[in-house]
């Protein structure tokens, strides 16, 4: 039973590293990624559907490249690139966050696109036949319906992001996986530390998905 005893010992000594620092930074990084990613993703979607064709191609190219390359590679890329191109000093946390945001934004832009495309074409036709212009149709008819497709997918993206932030530990930015690296370095109890961090990740994503599920049910109840 020394495995569980070890876990108990580790938690008594290092609970702050896991639960305060680790969970705190993981949630902070996830929240930044999801909120900025949603805004940037919306902008990418607008760029993709803009009338100016070269902008469409640029956005499509960026999205395809981001979706077609490993995230860890992208994090390395932005980790080195961001401090070089910004005129002011950036923390490692900031540089990694930029990478995560850009990655998430590309997926989110696809969520917006599929959510909007899933609204029946007849809705647009009906609105246009009444004399609404494209903008009015989008704002009054399409988006309010698309949001019901988009929100659940955004929730899933949030859960994915929570797990994806673990890659940021490569740069030792303080989130949960970094806590694992630190405590393992001190205790040499690899399996125990992995188990602790794994349980915390699972509890986080499980709670999050329950929360989002309740939120979705409330949305549906409004129909």
């Amino acid at each position: 039973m020394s495995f569980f005893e070890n876990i108990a010992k580790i938690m008594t000594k290092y609970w702050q590293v896991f639960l305060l620092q680790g969970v705190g930074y993981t949630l902070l990084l996830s929240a930044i990624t999801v909120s900025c990613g949603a805004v940037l993703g919306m902008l990418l979607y607008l760029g993709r559907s803009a009338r100016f064709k070269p902008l469409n191609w640029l956005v499509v190219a960026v999205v395809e490249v981001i979706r077609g390359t490993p995230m860890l590679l992208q994090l390395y890329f932005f980790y080195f690139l961001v401090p070089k191109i910004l005129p002011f000093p950036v923390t490692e946390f900031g540089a990694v966050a930029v990478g995560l945001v850009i990655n998430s934004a590309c997926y989110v832009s696809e969520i917006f696109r599929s959510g909007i495309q899933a609204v029946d074409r007849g809705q647009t036709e009906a609105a246009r036949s009444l004399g609404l212009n494209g903008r009015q149709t989008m704002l009054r008819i399409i988006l309010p319906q698309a949001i019901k497709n988009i929100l659940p997918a955004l929730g899933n993206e949030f859960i994915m992001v929570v797990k994806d932030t673990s890659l940021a530990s490569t740069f030792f930015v303080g989130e949960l996986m970094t806590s694992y690296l630190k405590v393992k370095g001190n205790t040499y109890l690899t399996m125990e530390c992995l188990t602790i961090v794994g349980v915390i990740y699972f509890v986080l994503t499980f709670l999050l998905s329950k929360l989002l599920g309740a939120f979705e049910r409330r949305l549906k109840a409004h129909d």
Partner: protein
Amino acid sequence: MTENLIETVDLHKSFDVLGRGRLHVLKGVTEHIAKGEVVSVIGPSGGGKSTFLRCLNLLEVPEQGKIIFEGVEITGEKVDINLHRQKMGMVFQHFNVFPHLSVMKNITLAPVLLGKKSPTEADEQARALLNRVGLLEKAEEHPGRLSGGQKQRLAIVRALAMEPDVMLFDEPTSALDPEMVGEVLEVIKSLVGEGMTSVIVTHEMGFAREVSDRILFMDGGVIAESGKPEELLNHPQNPRTQDFLSKVLY
């Protein structure tokens, strides 16, 4: 009945159809619809009926040809089609009511948003329209709770709320359960009775005979025959019309 409300000149339209190449759907349609006239369009599927109707308010943009509506060439450049569409009500096969809005909002959205009516005026008008089609008690419901026939009646009054000069009906009863066809046709009939200019794409031959001033038979992308209901339905001249009518039970 002499003033032309809509005139089309040599309309051509083709679509890319997956795996079948380019499909030429309209092959030169020239027609005019007079003010107050009720015109039904019949013919086999794929003959271009719906495409013709959808061209009239430019939901489909023809590649060639002109459409003149109330003296304005709406296919011309620099035409604000949104303004002209306000004068052309359209009713769709699949209703296309707005599911996220209440029945009332479905009707008042466009007149208020487009500055045609104040919210109070629009409200009053919507209630009067709902009352007329027997849906007043559904005013605050969402369309999800309506039957197909009720949805279509809502779609009709939604279009009427813009006080259009012409109504375009695209197979308004084709997606309905049989027992609901009657209630929708009644509404259309009463509209037509008030002198509303209407173009009706339909498979309901009996209805077309009853309400139309004129019937167009479309096949192969052209208007193959046009005439008064009794003439066209009882004594079709064109062999294609004869063939089509012989296969249709009504």
